[in-house]
């Protein structure tokens, strides 16, 4: 299948790119004085965060279009993006606290990114569980679309809540944890990482989309699907 092959190639390139990011971030990027080595987690955490949230928006948009157009390709795309988004949300949820512990002294805090990571993860998990629980494919697509749209609608409220909560409970800032103003070298590493994560997203989604299509063919042919 053409999409599958394209997806695999892009993923392979992205994985190589990721190795490159690792080398560049760990060896060739200067250490940030205030946060130390732990700051380098930023180069992985933030691009993952960008795509975790973007993916949720894409799920929502694809869902809206699906409800109007009823094109199964949109549903397949929404499903693929949701699963890949889950992976990025998990990345956020693991790297976030690992970054937070040395910087804030605590594993968890209700700051903007960690809170969003948690909500995105819960939304994605709910979406995937709902899909797996509905047997009829037509209902499944419709229901997933409904949930996807609601999920997308929730995200702005999460942002607003964090903002409101923060103005009432200013966080004790010992070290400045959010993005420092990046000098050139760090900015370049970040840009490279973001590019690699974009490729990763693309490769993953293409493969997952192709997988959905394959499974649908198998189901239609009466065979067992993975």
């Amino acid at each position, binding site marked *: 299948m053409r999409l599958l092959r394209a997806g695999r190639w892009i993923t392979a390139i992205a994985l190589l790119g990721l190795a490159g990011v690792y080398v560049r971030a760990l060896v060739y990027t200067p250490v940030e004085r205030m946060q130390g080595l732990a700051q380098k987690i930023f180069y992985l955490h933030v691009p993952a965060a960008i795509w975790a949230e973007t993916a949720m928006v894409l799920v929502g948009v694809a869902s809206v279009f699906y409800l109007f157009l009823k094109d199964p390709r949109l549903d397949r795309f929404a499903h693929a993006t949701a699963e890949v988004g889950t992976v990025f949300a998990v990345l956020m949820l693991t790297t976030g606290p690992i970054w937070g512990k040395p910087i804030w002294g605590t594993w968890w805090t209700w700051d903007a990114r960690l809170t969003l990571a948690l909500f995105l993860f819960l939304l994605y998990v709910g979406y995937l569980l709902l899909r797996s629980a509905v047997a009829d494919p037509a209902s499944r697509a419709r229901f997933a679309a409904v949930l996807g749209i*609601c999920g997308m609608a929730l995200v702005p409220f999460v942002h607003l809540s964090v903002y409101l909560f923060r103005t009432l409970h200013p966080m004790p800032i010992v070290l400045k944890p959010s993005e420092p103003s990046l000098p050139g070298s760090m900015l370049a590493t970040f840009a490279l990482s973001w590019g690699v994560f974009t490729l990763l997203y693309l490769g993953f989604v293409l493969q997952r989309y192709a997988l959905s299509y394959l499974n649908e063919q198998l189901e239609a042919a009466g065979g067992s699907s993975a």
Partner: protein
Amino acid sequence: MRLPDSVRHAWAVAAKDLLVEFRSRTGILSAAVFVVLVLMVFNFGRDPTAIPNIVLAPSILWVTFTFSAIIALNRAFQLELENQALDGLLLAPIGRSSIYLGKLVANLVFVAIVEVIGVPLVALFFNVDLWSRIGPLAGIIALATIGFVAVGTLFSAMTVRTRFAELLLPVVLLPFMILPLAWATLATTRVFAGRPLSEIGDWLKMLAGYDIVFVVLALLLFPATVNE
């Protein structure tokens, strides 16, 4: 003055659900017993010298309401499903939005009854003066309840026919419940602490905004959950 058809139909749907509920009374009774049980457990479980009641009371209040809401929501479409009456309901010459509104109203009434029972009980068991702050408290409770019951009613239409419906609904609903719940608990804590009303203004606005957005969204999306 005659009400528009959609409103009358919605009320008919709500009245039917509520009538069935009140005739059997099991729903209300179990919910009431549940509230008493939870409050008693919390009461026995805490050390009165460690944390003042007024600090615990908001969280306990909202935990009880949330559980009751989930119970109500799981029952929302169960009735039709068990009696294969959902098709009948859909065939009736009423708009889909009326069905949703009717279900929403019925669920809200159910949860409201639990809340009306729960608030005085919390005041009693925890020796907290709620009456003097009943106005803002009622406002917070009303807004938050509308928020998660609105989304929950929409989702229950989708989960009711799945295999682990009672489990799936809370899981899918979770992120949509946490937000109004968090805002409500934060606001309630301030109300109990006797803070000036201006401090809860922001939370009330968030709750109201949430309600408007999600009720409208649910009305728009509900037909997708029942159309064959």
